[in-house]
């Protein structure tokens, strides 16, 4: 017998509702009307250019890793955002002629990291500077702690999902005398370490908003706007629910008891 699972109706409504808002914003507002929403300043992204400049002066290489969240996990979006920022950093490295060492722990993400760096060098017309061996597959990326000290890196970018290796790489970067720029959405437990040990750090969703902030692409910025509208909707729902429950009317809240 085919039926909708009763206690998941509210989840279905929320999914369909948020998809509708996002699809409207992405296709109509973003692609057709090309509206670019202003995104508030993200200091860590502005600091990227400064860090690459520092590496040019000191003649030291840079290290970038898009984190250790595999694409089949809940934290996958962090890796996808990390790879988008990798493209930006790789283009800067190609343009300013700085050696970029990219390490990647996840086998299925490794091809993406390689292609992203190669694409960036091609778009900057510097394909002959692209070195295949500087994009390293490391089944345990925390081993890059040794590599950073060996190569004496000048800037260390950690963008994506990190667990314990986040602190190892941040501290190792600091000990190697590099500017540490971190960005992590999930898992939340690692965020404090990058906030403390990095010079600049994107916290939580700021990482997802970073690719929109960099590219100023109408589709990306409109989805960030959609994200904010859904957030406001959640806050309104919470306020209504809390007020009603405090008055004893818990039917509204029990709708969400799933």
């Amino acid at each position, binding site marked *: 017998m085919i039926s909708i699972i009763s*206690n998941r109706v509210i989840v279905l409504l929320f999914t369909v509702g948020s998809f509708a808002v996002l699809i409207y914003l992405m296709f109509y507002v973003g692609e057709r009307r090309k509206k670019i929403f202003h995104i508030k300043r993200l200091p860590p992204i502005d600091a990227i250019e400064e860090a690459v400049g520092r590496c040019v002066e000191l003649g030291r290489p840079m290290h970038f890793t898009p984190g250790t969240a*595999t694409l*089949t*996990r*809940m934290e996958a979006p962090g890796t996808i955002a990390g790879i988008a920022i990798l493209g930006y950093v790789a283009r800067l490295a190609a343009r300013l002629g700085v050696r970029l060492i990219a390490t990647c722990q996840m086998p299925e993400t490794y091809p993406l990291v390689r292609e992203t760096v190669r694409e960036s060098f091609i778009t900057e017309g510097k394909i002959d500077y692209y070195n295949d061996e500087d994009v390293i597959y490391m089944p345990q990326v925390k081993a890059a702690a040794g590599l950073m000290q060996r190569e004496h890196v000048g800037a260390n970018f950690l963008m994506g999902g990190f*667990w*314990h290796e986040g602190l190892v790489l941040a501290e190792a970067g600091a*000990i190697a005398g590099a500017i540490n720029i971190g960005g992590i959405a999930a*898992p*939340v*437990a*690692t965020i404090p370490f990058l906030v403390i040990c990095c010079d600049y750090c994107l916290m939580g969703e700021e990482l997802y908003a970073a690719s929109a902030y960099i590219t100023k692409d109408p589709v990306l910025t409109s989805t960030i706007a959609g994200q904010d509208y859904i957030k406001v909707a959640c806050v309104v729902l919470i306020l209504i629910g809390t007020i009603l429950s405090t008055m004893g009317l818990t039917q509204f809240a029990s709708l969400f008891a*799933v």
Partner: protein
Amino acid sequence: MTLRKIERLDPRYLFLILLVVASIPMIIPLGLPMKAGALTEKAYLIIESLPPESVVVIDACMSAGYGPELQTQFVALLRHLLSRPLKVVIVSFGTEGPMLFDMALKGGLISGPKVDLEKYGKVYGVDWVYLGYIPGGETAFASFARDSWMTKVDDENTPLDELPIMQYCKNIDDWSLSITVTGGSFEQYIAQWSAAYGTTLIMGVPGVSAPRLFPYVATGQLAAMLVSLRGAGEYELLIKQPGLGAQLMDILNLTQLLIVLSVIIGNILYFAGRLGGQK
């Protein structure tokens, strides 16, 4: 300015201090006092209250990197489950689970004394079973909940229909309790087991992951939680079978105080340096 020099201390001196402080309890056993926390006690009471023949699925998803932190929790929980009249279905969703499950049975450096099965008089295939490693993370949780026979064979490749215990455990509706001792994928377990089917879920987690799970304890999606070595030490206290957990608590106490001290000293030197600079 000596203050400036001390603040810029080479980190290697700090590493040395930590090594020395951590080694003190090895020379003089301190035996500091310890009381079981609320969350650990809740896990103990849930298992104690299970009626006989209830099916308990426990996921040995530890990894060697966490060392004693998760291993001691799994050993304490396994000992408690085996001393109760329950049907214990053990599975591993983590790549290193199988190896560490064997280590728990045989005893090891990070595991403490072995879990000797003879003491509990349990028969394999009737009272407990080990289904081995299932890859895929969240996708595997979803499939295993829907069909607990998905592996088709147990870890020794004996077909499941030859194991009487599996008649009690077809899918998640038969589970009375699900436990996972894991270093990651917490939200996925909650989403695919507790939120999706309302199954009682207990987790053994490393210290690093505990704070972000307290909101799920507040909403009841997570019934109880063992946090890091402290949880294991307390659980060993509750089941009155001391193991590696209690032994390591002395080192943990001293080294945590050392970190608090270094944060305070670091800040005093920082502000003293800045005040000195302004003067």
